C-alpha cells in the first residue's frame, strides 16, 4: 500500500472523529488512534523508503489544483505529529473527561481532531494557497483548544494573545506566499534555489513561521498560552504545534535562495532564545509556565542547529552543516516527545491537586510515584543528559558546530558564541529541572491539597509511559534514526543526500546502553547493600531546630535566587518587599515575579502607543455635523492635490 492510502484513511478517521466524536468519546479515541497509526505508517514508509510521496489531484479548492507531497523532511514531522497526537488523545480521555467538563469536553474532541488534521495538511500541502488555509485552520482550532476553559479571564487573555501573535505571523505568510506566487507565477511550491531574486522573501518566511515556532523575540504568546491551556492541549501545542513553525522555517530555508546573513541571524536568534528562554524558565514558579519557557529554549537550540546548517550552505555546503541540521531535526523529535511527557506529568499533578504553583506543591512522589518517576525521566531527557534522547540531538548539534570550529571555516565566529551559549543553556536547563522536579515531587507537601493528592489513572499514565519508551529508544539506539535524518537532510540540501559526514551514533548508543545498564545495576546493588547494612528511617536533620515545618523547605524561588541575581539585569524581576520592622512587626511580604522580557518592555509599550493613537483618532468622531462637512471638504482638497500631483508627474 502507498502512503496515500494510509493518509486517506487517516483523513477519513479524523473527519469522522470530528463529526461523531462529540457525543461518543470511545469512538473518537478509536478513530483518532487509528488515524494517528495510519499517519505514522505513511510517514515511516517515506522515512525508511527512498522515494518521496507526491499526489496531484484534479479537484481544485480555491481554484488551485490540490498538490500534496510527503518527503523526508515533512515525514519526520508527520511521524512526530502522529505519536504525540495519539498520546495526547489518550491522555485527554483521562484528563478532560465529560464528567468533569460536560460543556467543553465534546468541543475539545472536535477541535483536537480538526487541529490534528490541519497540522497534517500543513505538512502535506505543497501549494501556497492550501498551505495558508491549513495554517489558519490550525491556528484557529488551536485557539479554541487553548481557550476551552473560557470562564477564566486569564485563559481568555492568553488565548487572545496567542491569536493576535499568530495572526501577525499569518499576515507575514500572506505577504510571503503572495509575493512568491507573484514572482514565480504560480501558487505551487517547490525548490526555487536558483532564482536569486527571491532571497529577501526568506525573512518574511522566517518571521511568519517563527512566530508560531516560538522563535525568540516573537515568542511572547507562547508562555501564557501553553501555561493556561488544558494540559493535553499544552502537550500538543508544545510537542507538535510549535514544530509546525520550525517545519516552515526548515522547509523554506531549504527551498529558497538564502540571503548571506541568514545563518548568522538564525544563530543569533537561536542563541538568544536558548539563553533567555531557559533563564526565564529557571525563575518561574508556575510549573507549566516553566515548561513553556523551556520550549522557547529548545526552539532556540533547534534554530542554532538550523542556523549552523544555513551557515554551512552559504559557505559552500560544508559537510558539518549536515550534522547540524540532522541534530536540529532530531532535537525537534526529542523536544516534542519529552516536552509532551513533561506536560502530561504537570497535567496529572494539576489534575490531582488543582495547583500549578510550585510553592503550593511538594512531596508528591509518595502519592503519585508514577508521575514523579516519569516526570523525572522527562526532566533528564530534556536536560540533555545521557543516556537519554535529549543528549543525542544536542550532541549532534554540538558536533556540527565543533566540526565547523575545528575546520576553522569562515563561520567560526558565528559558531563559537553559539557553542558557549549551548553549554550555558544546558547547565541552566539542568538546574531548572532539578528545581522543578524536586520542588514538586520531593521533600514534604507544602499545602494540604498537595498532601491529599492521588495518582493519576491508567489513561493518563499510559501515554506518559509510551512517550518515555520512545525517549529511551532514541537514547539507547540512536543509530536507528540516522537514516531518516539523513534523508531529511538530503531533501533539505540535496548535496548532503550522500552519506558523507557520518555521525558516530553507534558508539554513542553503545556508551548509552552500557551507562544505563551499569547505572541500574549499581543502583540496585547500592540499594540492596544499604538494606543489608540495616536501613533506618529518621526525620531529616534539622540542625537542632525543634519545630521544622514544610514551609521551611528550600522553595523554588530561593533555589533559583542565585541565578536570578546574575540575570536580574535582563529579566527585570518585579519585587514587592515589606520588611518586618518595629517592636511588634505585623506582617512581612516578599513577592517576586518575572514578566516576559519582550512582552513587558517592547510589546506592551508599543500596544499602548497604538491604543493612545486610536483614542486620539476616535475623538474626531465627535458627532458635530458641521465638522463632518469640514472633513468632507478636506477630503476634496487632498484628492484634488493628489490628482494635480499626478498630472504633474
Amino acid at each position, binding site marked *: 500500500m502507498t502512503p496515500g492510502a494510509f493518509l486517506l484513511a487517516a483523513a477519513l478517521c479524523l473527519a469522522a472523529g470530528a463529526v461523531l466524536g462529540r457525543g461518543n468519546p470511545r469512538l473518537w479515541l478509536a478513530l483518532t488512534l487509528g488515524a494517528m497509526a495510519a499517519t505514522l505508517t505513511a510517514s515511516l514508509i517515506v522515512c525508511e523508503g527512498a522515494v518521496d510521496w507526491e499526489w496531484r489531484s484534479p479537484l481544485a479548492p480555491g481554484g488551485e489544483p490540490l498538490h500534496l507531497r510527503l518527503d523526508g523532511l515533512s515525514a519526520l514531522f508527520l511521524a512526530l505529529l502522529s505519536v504525540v497526537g495519539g498520546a495526547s488523545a489518550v491522555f485527554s480521555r483521562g484528563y478532560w473527561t465529560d464528567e468533569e467538563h460536560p460543556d467543553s469536553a465534546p468541543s475539545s474532541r472536535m477541535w483536537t481532531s480538526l487541529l490534528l488534521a490541519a497540522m497534517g495538511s500543513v505538512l502535506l500541502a505543497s501549494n501556497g494557497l492550501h498551505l495558508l488555509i491549513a495554517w489558519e485552520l490550525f491556528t484557529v482550532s488551536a485557539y479554541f483548544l487553548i481557550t476551552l476553559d473560557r470562564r477564566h479571564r486569564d485563559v*481568555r487573555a492568553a488565548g487572545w494573545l496567542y491569536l493576535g501573535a499568530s495572526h501577525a505571523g499569518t499576515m507575514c505568510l500572506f505577504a510571503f506566499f503572495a509575493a512568491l506566487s507573484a514572482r514565480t507565477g504560480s501558487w505551487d511550491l517547490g525548490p526555487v534555489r536558483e532564482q536569486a531574486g527571491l532571497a529577501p522573501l526568506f525573512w518574511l518566511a522566517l518571521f511568519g513561521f517563527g512566530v508560531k515556532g516560538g522563535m525568540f523575540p516573537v515568542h511572547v504568546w507562547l508562555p501564557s498560552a501553553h501555561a493556561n491551556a488544558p494540559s493535553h492541549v499544552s502537550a500538543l501545542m508544545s510537542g507538535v504545534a510549535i514544530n509546525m513553525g520550525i517545519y516552515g522555517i526548515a522547509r523554506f530555508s531549504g527551498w529558497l535562495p538564502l540571503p548571506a546573513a541568514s545563518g548568522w541571524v538564525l544563530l543569533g536568534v537561536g542563541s538568544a532564545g536558548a539563553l533567555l528562554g531557559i533563564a526565564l524558565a529557571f525563575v518561574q514558579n508556575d510549573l507549566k509556565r516553566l515548561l513553556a519557557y523551556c520550549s522557547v529554549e529548545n526552539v532556540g537550540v533547534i534554530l542554532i542547529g538550523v542556523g549552523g546548517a544555513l551557515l554551512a550552505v552559504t559557505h559552500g555546503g560544508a559537510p558539518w552543516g549536515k550534522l547540524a541540521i540532522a541534530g536540529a531535526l532530531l532535537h525537534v523529535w526529542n523536544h516534542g516527545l519529552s516536552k509532551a511527557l513533561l506536560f502530561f506529568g504537570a497535567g496529572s499533578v494539576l489534575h490531582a491537586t488543582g495547583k500549578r504553583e510550585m510553592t503550593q506543591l511538594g512531596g508528591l512522589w509518595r502519592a503519585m510515584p508514577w508521575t514523579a518517576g516519569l516526570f523525572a525521566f522527562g526532566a533528564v531527557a530534556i536536560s540533555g543528559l545521557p543516556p537519554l534522547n535529549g543528549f543525542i540531538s544536542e550532541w549532534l548539534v554540538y558536533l556540527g558546530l565543533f566540526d565547523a570550529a575545528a575546520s576553522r571555516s569562515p563561520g567560526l565566529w558565528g559558531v563559537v558564541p553559539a557553542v558557549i551559549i549551548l553549554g550555558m543553556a544546558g547547565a541552566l536547563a539542568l538546574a531548572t529541572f532539578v528545581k522543578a522536579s524536586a520542588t514538586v515531587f520531593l521533600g514534604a507537601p507544602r499545602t494540604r491539597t498537595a498532601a491529599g493528592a492521588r495518582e493519576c489513572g491508567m489513561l493518563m499514565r499510559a501515554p506518559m509511559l509510551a512517550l518515555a519508551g520512545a525517549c529511551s529508544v532514541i537514547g539507547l539506539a540512536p543509530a536507528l534514526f540516522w537514516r531518516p535524518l539523513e534523508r531529511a537532510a538530503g531533501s533539505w540540501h540535496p548535496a548532503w543526500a550522500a552519506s558523507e559526514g557520518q555521525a558516530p551514533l553507534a558508539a554513542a548508543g553503545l556508551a548509552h546502553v552500557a551507562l544505563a545498564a551499569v547505572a541500574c545495576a549499581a543502583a540496585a546493588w547500592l540499594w540492596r547493600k544499604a538494606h543489608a547494612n540495616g536501613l533506618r528511617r529518621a526525620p531529616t536533620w534539622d540542625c537542632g531546630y525543634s519545630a521544622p515545618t514544610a514551609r521551611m523547605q528550600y522553595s523554588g524561588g530561593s533555589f533559583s535566587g542565585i541565578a536570578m541575581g546574575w540575570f536580574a539585569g535582563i529579566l527585570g524581576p518585579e519585587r514587592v518587599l515589606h520588611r518586618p520592622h518595629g517592636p511588634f512587626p505585623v506582617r512581612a511580604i516578599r513577592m517576586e515575579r518575572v514578566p516576559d522580557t519582550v512582552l513587558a518592555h517592547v510589546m506592551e509599550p508599543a500596544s499602548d502607543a497604538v*491604543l493612545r493613537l486610536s483614542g486620539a483618532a*476616535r475623538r474626531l468622531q465627535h458627532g458635530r*455635523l458641521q465638522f463632518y462637512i469640514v472633513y*468632507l471638504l478636506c477630503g476634496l482638497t487632498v484628492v484634488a492635490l493628489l490628482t494635480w500631483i*499626478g498630472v504633474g508627474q
Partner: protein
Amino acid sequence: MREFLLIILPLAGAALAVLWPSERTRPWLMPAVGSVHTVLAFWLLFSPPHVAPGAWFGFDPIARSVLPAVSLLFLACAAYGVTYLRIRTERPNRVFVASLLAILGLLSAGHQARHLGMLWITTEAVTLTAVPLLHFNGTSRAFEATWKYLLVGGTGIALSLLGSFCLGYASVRGGGNGDLTFVALMAQGAGLSRPWVLIAWVFLLVGYGTKMGLAPMHTWKPDAYGEAPAIVGAMLAGGVTTVAFTAVLRVRAVINAAGEGLAADRTLLAIGLFSMLVAVLFLLGTRDFKRMLAYSSVEHMGILVIGAALGPAGLWAAFFHVWSNGLTKGALFLSAGNIRRAAGARTADEVRGMSSVTPQSAAIFVAGMFAVTACPPFGPFFSELRVIRAAFETGHLAVAAMFLACLLFAFFGLTRLVFSIVDGRPRTAEKGAAKRIREKAGVIIPPLALMGISLWLGLATPAALREAWTDAVAQLYPAP
C-alpha cells in the same frame, strides 16, 4: 427585457406594498419579490443578454458581475425581515417594506446605469429611499443618525452632480455632442478636455466616495449602521456602497480612456489606504459592536478601491471582494442584530457571555468575524489575498505592507471586541432576555446561508462568476 424586469419588478412590489392592507402578511412581499429577483439575476448571470452600446440601462458585464450578489443579499435580508418584522410589531411596516423593495429596484437600476446622468439619478434616489429605513426605529438617536446621513450624503451627492456636470462639460468642450453614456465618453477618450476631466474625477470620486463611505467622508456610516435595523445595515453595506463603487469604476474607466488613469489610480490608492487606516484606528477603540461593523465596512471599501487601482488583476480581485465582503458582512449584520436584540444593549461594557445566551447567533458572529478578517477558507480570504498578490505583481510593495498592517490591526480590534461580547459570564439581564427571545429559525438560517455562500465562494468559485468578472475587467480595461 429580463434586465428591465429586475428594475420594474421590485418597484411594482413597492407600490403593491404601499397598497397592501394587512400589516401581518405584507412582509412576505419581500421574500417573494426577492426570490424572483434572485432567480432572474442568476439567469442573467448565466445567460447574459446583448446590450445595445448606446443604451442608457443595460445588463452589461459590470452589472452582471455585481448585481447577483446584491440580489442574493437582499433575499437573505428579506427572509430575515419577515421574522424580524413579526418581532417588531409595534412599528408599522408599510413604509419600511415599500422602501426596502424600492431600494432593490433602484439598486438594480443603478448597477445597470450606463449613462452618467442616469447613474447619478439612481444613486440620488437610493439615498433618499434609504431615509425612512434608517428612521424605522423612530427614536431621537435614529433621527440624529438619519439627519447626519442625509446631510453628509446629500452633500456628497451634490458634489457628484457637480462632477457629472464637469465631465459633461469636458465632453462638450472636447467637441462632444452631449451624449453622456459611458460608452460614448470612453470613445471620446483623449478628445475629452483634460482639465475638466480631472476636475470631474475629483468631484465624482469624493461624491461617490461619500456614498461608499470612504474616509474621511465616512462619518455618517457608524451612526447610520449603528441605529438602523440589521437588515438596513446589511443592505446599505452590501448594496448601496456597491452601486457607488461601480459608479467609481465606470468613471475611472472614462478617466483612464482620457489618459489620466495613473493620476486616478494614485488617488484611489491614497484614499483607499487612508480609509483602511482610519477604519483600523477606530476599530481598535470602539466598544459598540454595530458601529464596529460600520468601521469594518469602511475598511473593506478601502480594500475595494485599492484593488480597483491595482490593474486588471486587482480589479478582478475587487469584484471578487464585492461578493465575498457583501455576503459576509450581511451575515455579520444579521447575527449582530440577533445579539443586539437578545442583549438589549450594544456596547461591550454592557454585553457579555452571549455565547451562552444566543449560542447560534454568537457562533455565526464569530465565524463571520473570522471570515471578514480574511481568515481562510471564507471568501474574503481569497479576494484579499488576490489583492495583495496584485499589489506585488504591480510592484506596490509599500501598499502591500500597509495593507497587511491594517488587516492585522483590524483583526486585533475586531477580535478584542467580539470575544469580549461573546465570551465571559452573561449578565442577569441578558439571561432574562434569553428567556424572552429564543433564536427563531427565521433569524438564524439567513445569516447561516450567507456564511455558507461565502465559504462556497471561496473554495469553489463558480466558473460563471470568474468569467463575469473577467468580462467586467475587460469592459473597464478595453484592449487598445
